[in-house]
């Protein structure tokens, strides 16, 4: 359909690739190595809260370098850049909306709490309340009585083997009492004991009514929590 002009105008016809110099490639590779080092260094400084932000920012710079130079996006058609970068916006939407839900579960009233359909009890990941004493109270009604988190049936023979488990291993940490090694993890889950710090953050943020109610049951700490 374009035979008429095809051979006359060479520019419309042939492919003219942009040839990047070796120097540029080497420089980019060097920069990528440097940034990798920087990521590791930032990790070893233990930035705490900032850790994630810094790591992701550095990764973004690195991927921009790879995209712009190694993948030639800098010299590519604008639409290719638009579509590729645009796809990241959709990833952002996906991430933001989903986290908007999961980060706010159970904040208001009881709607939004997650229930383990197998048991009808509240499931892991539900916003949880920790008392100052470090005791785990998933929810008032779940806390007393049944275990709130029942595991799926352990594999056969698990129970029996677990019972034999406590062969002593020297406690190497601070050797007062002999430590008993960890029981198989399935058993631990059954105790319903969350690792203590796990929900530390959730605890700090929980200042609404639901929390106050729960905390009120832990009489002594109620005031502190407010």
């Amino acid at each position, binding site marked *: *359909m374009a035979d008429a002009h095809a051979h006359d105008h060479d520019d419309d016809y042939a492919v003219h690739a942009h040839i990047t110099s070796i120097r540029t490639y080497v420089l980019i590779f060097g920069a990528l190595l440097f940034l990798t080092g920087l990521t590791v260094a930032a990790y070893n400084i233990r930035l705490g809260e900032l850790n994630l932000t810094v790591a992701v920012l550095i990764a973004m710079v690195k991927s921009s370098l790879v995209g712009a130079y190694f993948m030639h996006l800098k010299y590519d058609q604008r639409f290719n850049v638009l579509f590729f970068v645009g796809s990241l916006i*959709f990833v952002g939407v996906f991430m933001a909306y989903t986290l*908007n*839900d999961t980060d706010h579960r159970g904040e208001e009233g009881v709607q939004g*709490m997650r229930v383990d359909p*197998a048991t009808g009890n509240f499931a892991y990941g539900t916003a949880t309340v920790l008392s100052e004493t470090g005791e785990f109270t998933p929810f008032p009604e779940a806390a007393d009585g049944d275990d709130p*988190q029942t595991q799926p049936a352990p594999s056969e023979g698990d129970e029996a083997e677990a019972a034999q488990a406590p062969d002593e291993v020297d406690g190497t940490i601070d050797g007062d009492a002999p430590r008993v090694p960890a029981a198989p993890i399935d058993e631990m889950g059954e105790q319903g004991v969350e690792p203590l710090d796990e929900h530390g953050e959730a605890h700090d943020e929980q200042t609404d009514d639901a929390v106050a109610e729960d905390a009120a049951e832990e009489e002594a700490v109620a005031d502190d929590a407010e």
Partner: protein
Amino acid sequence: MTAEVAPQPHAHAPTGEGYLTHERGLKSWLFTLDHKRIGLMYLGSVLLAFLLGGIMALLVRAELLFPGETLMEADTYNQVFTLHGAIMVFLFIIPSIPAALGNFFLPIMLGTKDVAFPRLNLGSFYIYCLGAIVAIVAIVIGHVDTGWTFYTPYSARADSSVIWMTSGAFILGFSSILTGVNFIATVHKMRAPGLHWKRLPLFIWGMYATSVIQVLATPVLAITLFLLMMEKTLTVGIFDPALGGDPVLFQHFFWFYSHPAVYIMILPGMAIVNEVIATFSHRKIFGYMFVAMSSISLALVGFLVWGHHMFTAGMSEYATMVFSALTFLVAIPSGVKVFNWVATLYQGSISFKSPMLYSLGFIALFTIGGLTGLFLGILSVDIHLHDTYFVVAHFHYVMVGGTVFGFVSGLHYWWPKMTGKMYSEKLARVAFVFVFVGFNVTFFSQFVLGSQGMPRRYYDYLDQFQPLHMTSSGGAFILGFGFLIMLFMFVKSLVSGEKAPPNPWSSAGYEWMTTTPIHPHNFAEPPVMTRGPYDYHLCTEEELFPGFPEDFKPSEKAAKA
């Protein structure tokens, strides 16, 4: 992904032979790179899937004629409605218009010889077949009763054949993605000279918007189903609450794909209605750019509202409010479309041929389906209506009243161009009456059932619902009968239909400019577009002449006038 394609054997087809006859034999079909033949193979496959899914639907309705056990056990019933949903969604609706009719007409409407990647196109057809086979094997030998949505935690604990079923859907997803990639590249790079973006037929705009969704949303379905498979094999614990996972997260993942997928289903239907309305009103489409942009914005806004499927699933209230508010945005571009279609009809010279009847049916039914969707987007109302027959009726009004009517409309509209045969207009109209009446009887009664509280997917129901269930089932059989008449009508056309002229509807669309039967390279001479596809005022008399070119005698006609 490579672009180079060996020159095809039919490159030197004798002039005058159509794409159907210039090569013969099974091999010339199975290894064809011609988008028209691939489109026809897709058409055959999706129609087969439609037949299967339709039979399942009739089984479901037959079972629900009376409370208690009528035909099958509860367990079988669960499998049958799962099959109905999964086959209709993954094997029929999603590929129906884009992969079959789109594949056939997209390059023709762009005035090019083929899609950008013909081998990829054939590959995606075989991937579709593979996915269909895997899914059907899972159905036949296994026990899949999760519903087409595969919600965890049930699906994670259900029969292991769910893994095969999801693998099938996973594979089908890739077929869909590759079709999308192909179409976008074709629209961008393969347009004929003179065919700039503002002249693009609205069917192409619709396909383009659909393809964007296919490329951006379908991979999320793939990863969701992949994670479900991992959940069932490795117990990764992402969706299993017992392992610290979250079943609602599965719904987020699933609907991030499946809500945009609703637009994969409806946008092509709308795209066909644009063409049909313009042709049979014999008028430039009203507000061309608005219609085109509404397709694109529907595609984009469709990504922001998936949470409205999960209002009662246990999302945070904050998230439900955001999703509810955004849901109403969807009504804007949809409203723009309906308004522009009606405005196009206004003062047009309308002819009520069968494709037009289906398109008008589309507008009416889609409007009902769309508006009831807004009811469901309201949080408080949704609490009452969620998972009832109201939802079932709503999405059938959109999917059947919308997409299937659009698909059937397009099939009638392009049938003469595709096959070179005319069909019996009288039979087509009889079929339309049955389909339209049957559809409304089936699903309008379900609106009432749902608002009275009948939950969806239930095997049994209270006696008070019996009259409405019976009405609905009766309607389903009328609907099925209508489709049977249509099938008969099309078969009759193939066997003994009259030879079709190149432009039986006197349309200004580009696809009618080529010969019938279509040249293997679509156009004997590469076309140059000098007018838009709806510029009736710029068309010559010859271009709009509905009969055979040899019958056209402009001088005589001029003399008479």
